[in-house]
């Protein structure tokens, strides 16, 4: 009880300090704030540069994707590596190799409704998911492929594709999903995604430019200029991100729901 009182005091003080800090922020959408208008005598701000020059530099209408995959591409590459590392960590902690009967499974009380084996032949859920899953996958592919023209990109499309496999595991059982997307396949796909991303960077280095400086790839991609090369490279990089995210999302779910045995999960 006493610890709860101290925790509440700490939370209130921290929250108050944060709210006090927010008071110094410029108003929402203020055109004269330093991030939007730049500092006096310091030239234009970085946001102004992105808003006015992104389309001229890269021929990509979605500025967010251009910043993520091109101007800040090195950062996004390691974000993908972080997701890969998260999948590896969960694999290392949870995965049980070999067949052993998990004794902790039986200790759960019988009134835990979730721990009881449900009827996996539920006809309404099964039929609905059979219709929904292809639509989710198609939308995921659209989000990946169209990420540099409309909101979306590799992360969002990858999560959609991964969740379509999770939906399959939820509606039927884990084995039905693993038959289509086995452990060997999803870890290969996850590593391939990062290799695609890093491959674009190394290809730029081979053509004697900086790592992930896509403009030089026009010699390989046969585009009209460096702008279109950057646009196409962003698409390629997003596909790599989508590969990794799809595979890791499903691997995390498969390991968590089956206690690392990959046998009978949720």
């Amino acid at each position, binding site marked *: 009880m006493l610890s709860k009182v101290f925790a509440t005091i700490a939370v209130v003080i921290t929250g108050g300090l944060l709210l006090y800090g927010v008071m110094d922020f410029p108003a*929402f*959408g203020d055109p004269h704030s330093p991030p939007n208008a730049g500092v006096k005598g310091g030239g234009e701000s970085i946001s102004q540069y992105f808003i006015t020059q992104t389309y001229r530099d890269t021929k990509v209408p*979605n500025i*967010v*994707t251009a910043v993520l995959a091109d101007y800040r591409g090195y950062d996004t590459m390691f974000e993908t590596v972080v997701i890969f590392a998260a999948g590896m960590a969960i694999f290392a902690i949870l995965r049980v190799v070999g067949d052993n009967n998990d004794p902790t499974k039986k200790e*759960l009380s019988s009134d*835990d*409704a*979730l*721990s009881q084996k449900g009827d996996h032949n539920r006809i309404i859920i099964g039929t609905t998911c059979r219709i929904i899953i292809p639509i989710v996958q198609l939308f995921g592919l659209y*989000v990946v492929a169209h990420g540099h023209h409309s*909101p*979306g*990109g590799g*992360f*969002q499309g990858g*999560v*959609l594709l*991964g*969740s379509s496999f*999770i939906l399959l595991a*939820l509606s039927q059982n884990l084995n039905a999903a693993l038959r289509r997307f086995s452990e060997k396949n999803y870890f290969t796909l996850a590593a391939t995604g990062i290799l695609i991303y890093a491959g674009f960077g190394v290809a730029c280095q081979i053509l004697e430019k900086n790592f992930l400086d896509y403009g030089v790839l026009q010699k390989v991609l046969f585009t009209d200029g460096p702008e279109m090369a950057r646009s196409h490279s962003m698409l390629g990089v997003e596909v790599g991100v989508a590969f990794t995210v799809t595979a890791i*999302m499903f691997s*995390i*779910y498969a390991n*968590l*729901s089956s*206690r690392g045995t990959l046998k009978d*999960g*949720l």
Partner: protein
Amino acid sequence: MILAFDIIILIFMVVAAIIALNVKDLLSAAMIYGIYGFLICLLWAEMGAVDVAFTEASVGAGVSAVLFIATVYNTKRKSSD
């Protein structure tokens, strides 16, 4: 930015956060956390950050809620405090 819409969503978010922390049934807590994620996604979409809203809708409201449910399935369903 529509102020009334923002305020309504923020009130719902605070209510959802408090309920998610206080409810004893962990499955319900995971569900209400999903609702919280969806409300934050609405707020971002309304403020014009569509990319962030999209990510929050798929990761925050979708996959992380499912991962919580998968964890609850393998542990106890009731919270002890």
